[in-house]
């Protein structure tokens, strides 16, 4: 079988896959509501995720009010506080970050960036969104049932998650588990589409090693999700059975309110293993798309090819693989066999190697670059700073001996908010600003964007840097209040109040972002089709924003990698991926992978 990776127009081989006709919508409902177009589905996913994320943001304000000013707000009871914590964590990690990165950016960017007209099975893709919406609605419904939503903490550890002393241990926990199971079913439908589209539906010339790193990040993250979510699914099914039918998968014989319960012989540790076998890859499900997107933002806005593209790809793949064998570092204090701690500490620290490699490559990409401090670039650099910060505290917590004293303190809260809260959110903001002109066809307001960045970035540090200190003092996490605890100094109390004031301010400041996006989508000035002068295919579409089918009558052919910036001898300082070598005669051809001899066209 002959196939070529073209660098010049005469190399182009015939398409291996015949063009498939798209489903063409006829009515408003099929165009914008039950749409099969990945771009519309992406926007639906993003709006839903951001909406539920705002709910979680408000919950975090309520928590901060209680922590900063205990005994002040009568409506925040201890039960309510635990419910806020649980819902805040679960919504942010799964319903916001996972859905927005994979369902939102995945749907929008994968077909456009690999040169496909749509996802491979658009109908299944549409179902994915509607089941996700159902999962979100079930989650919201759990806030309005008797007893309220579950207050078991986002990790939902049994036995306390289903014992009657825990808030929301009735309908709340059941709806939570149902919602998670629905989310997983819906995600699987979308995830299969993303993976198969990347593997099997790329355009001519788009080899794997010419894909933008954004696609690589989303692709590997989706594979992780398809393999990690099953563990959560199984955990959710078994815990529902424990709760509803009275089975004893996770429940040992236990005394509840002075009476021996009917449970007998289950293993609470089993749930923790299942949960973290999902939970740790989940960290990278959120991080890997961020890694990919940041790489592309840095390269585009610093006008430099990404440093060490191959290494960047392999680092993503290796981090993805390693993320499956580190889960029990979340369980050093769980009572599992201490010898496990040695193994999991080792694997955890090994992950630092490919991760650090990525950070060095980002910095080397910026090195001597023509750095444009645009809004997306600011957010990308902000990501590197917060990610390094959170990554380094990760080294502390990855060591079993250091983790034991720090476990369940505010240090842990500071660590994971820095590394998988603030860092991915900064990427999301950067990515929204970067692709906003493509999605809406209009430009956002620069001044508002600047204000938004600086308030968010500096605010995030003002919130989470003190939490590291509080954690080292020994202030525990998940405590409703700790007014007269002897070892906690007065300074910790005032620091908590400071953090709360900043958190509320930064939270409210997000209105600037929402206003900027909504106002600019209607009133912003018309954007250039390629305002950042980027090389990737989504900026080369005939219409802006891209129409149904993405690329007009002819699919683009790819002749080069995604990072031909500041090319010596080129007319402009960049060469889009779909420009053949003949059209840029004074440059070196086919950057990226050297073409293997087998792919040279026959004489």
């Amino acid at each position, binding site marked *: *079988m*002959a*196939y*070529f*990776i073209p660098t010049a127009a005469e190399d182009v081989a*015939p*398409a*291996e*896959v015949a063009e*498939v006709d798209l489903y063409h919508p006829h009515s408003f409902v099929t165009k914008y509501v039950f749409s*099969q177009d990945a771009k519309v589905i992406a926007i639906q996913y993003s709006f839903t995720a951001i909406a539920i994320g705002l709910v979680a943001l408000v919950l975090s304000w309520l928590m901060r009010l209680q922590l900063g000013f205990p005994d002040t707000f009568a409506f925040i009871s201890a039960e309510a506080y635990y419910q806020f914590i649980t819902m805040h964590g679960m919504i942010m990690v799964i319903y916001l970050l996972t859905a927005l990165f994979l369902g939102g950016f995945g749907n929008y960017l994968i077909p456009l960036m690999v040169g496909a007209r749509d996802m*491979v*099975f658009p*109908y*299944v893709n549409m179902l994915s969104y509607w089941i996700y919406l159902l999962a979100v609605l079930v989650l919201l419904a759990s806030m309005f049932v008797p007893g309220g939503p579950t207050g078991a903490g986002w990790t939902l550890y049994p036995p306390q998650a289903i014992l009657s002393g825990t808030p929301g241990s009735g309908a709340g926990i059941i709806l939570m588990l149902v919602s998670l199971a629905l989310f997983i079913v819906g995600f*699987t439908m979308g995830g*299969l*589409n993303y993976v*198969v589209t990347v*593997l*099997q*539906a*790329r*355009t*001519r*010339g788009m*080899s*794997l*090693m*010419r894909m933008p790193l954004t696609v690589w990040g989303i692709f590997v993250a989706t594979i992780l999700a*398809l393999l*990690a*979510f*099953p*563990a959560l*699914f*199984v*955990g959710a*099914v*078994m815990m529902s*059975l424990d709760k509803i*039918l*009275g*089975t*004893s*998968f996770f429940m040992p014989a236990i005394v509840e309110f002075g009476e021996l319960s*009917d449970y*007998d*012989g289950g*293993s609470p*540790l089993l749930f923790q293993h*299942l949960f973290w076998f999902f939970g740790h890859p989940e960290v990278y499900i959120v991080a890997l798309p961020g890694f990919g997107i940041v790489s592309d933002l840095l390269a585009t806005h610093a006008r430099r090819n990404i440093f060490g593209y191959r290494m960047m790809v392999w680092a993503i793949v290796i981090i993805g693989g390693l993320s499956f064998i580190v889960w029990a570092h979340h369980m050093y204090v769980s009572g599992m066999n201490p010898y496990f701690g040695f193994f999991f500490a080792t694997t955890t620290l090994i992950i630092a190697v490919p991760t650090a490699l990525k950070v060095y490559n980002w910095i080397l990409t910026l090195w001597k670059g023509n750095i444009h401090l645009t809004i997306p670039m600011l957010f990308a650099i902000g990501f590197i700073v917060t990610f390094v910060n959170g990554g380094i505290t990760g080294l502390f917590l990855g060591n079993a001996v250091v983790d034991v004293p720090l476990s369940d303190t505010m240090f842990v809260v500071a660590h994971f908010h820095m590394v998988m809260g603030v860092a991915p959110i900064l990427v999301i903001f950067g990515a929204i600003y970067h692709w906003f002109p493509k999605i809406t066809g209009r430009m956002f307001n620069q001044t508002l964007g600047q204000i938004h960045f600086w308030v968010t970035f500096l605010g995030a540090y003002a919130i989470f840097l003190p939490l590291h200190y509080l954690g080292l003092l020994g202030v525990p996490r998940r405590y409703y209040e700790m007014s007269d605890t002897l070892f906690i100094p007065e300074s910790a109390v005032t620091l908590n109040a400071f953090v709360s004031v900043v958190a509320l301010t930064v939270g409210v400041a997000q209105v600037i972002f929402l206003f900027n996006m909504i106002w600019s989508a209607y009133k912003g000035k018309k954007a250039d089709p390629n305002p950042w002068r980027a090389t990737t295919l989504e900026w080369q579409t005939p219409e802006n924003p891209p129409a149904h089918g993405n690329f007009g009558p002819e699919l683009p052919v*790819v002749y080069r990698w995604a990072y031909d910036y500041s090319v010596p001898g080129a007319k402009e300082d960049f060469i889009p991926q779909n420009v053949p070598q003949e059209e840029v005669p004074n440059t070196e051809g086919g950057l990226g992978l050297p073409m*293997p*001899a*087998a*792919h*040279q*066209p*026959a004489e």
Partner: protein
Amino acid sequence: MATDSGGSVAQPDGVSGFVSDWASDQRAFKNVPWGKAMMWIFLLSDTFIFGCFLLSYMTVRMSTTETWPNASEVFALSFGGEPIPLILIAIMTFILITSSGTMVMAVNYGYRKARAKTVMWLLLTALFGATFVGMQAVEWTKLIEDGVRPWGNPWGAPQFGSTFFMITGFHGFHVSVGVLFLLIVARKVWRGDFDTEKRGFFTSRKGRYEIVETMGLYWHFVDLVWVFIFAFFYLW
């Protein structure tokens, strides 16, 4: 699918051939249609679900302090006095494995576009699958009559009933869904949808005879999973 098999280019051998296949443009797996690739990846994900179920079963079986009921006694049936251990499950397993064979025949005739024969083998497969689920219902009934419940049983660890009903139930659900789709695919073949390339309702993509093979992948997977469930539940 249009495939180009010009053969004008020499393929590198061994590992570098493998790598250049993967790194080439358009498709990582040459000649693999989208639906089939998607089914393989779905099955990989589903493997993790069954894997987690079975590992959980092993964990609770080890963590429970009570004795585990003896499988060869619990699953025995008596015909004329003498209990025969595992007799029902042996027949069920035989039927399900046989159905994999009939599925292979259906795929074979599907690619030859022999519609009547394909339909016949598909229906036979569905019949075997339905028989399996029916016999599973008999087995469940007998256990329930013996007093096995998800929360307890007369012989020992309560996890015996809970894992048994959960895992065989989840597998039986897979078989039932498979039977349903076998009937749908059989109907499509019978109507000639794959000759006219009629669009599928679910995928909105044109139907081709590869769908019979994709269906077969799922069916063989369900069989393979059963082999593990059989080994871990009935032989351990």
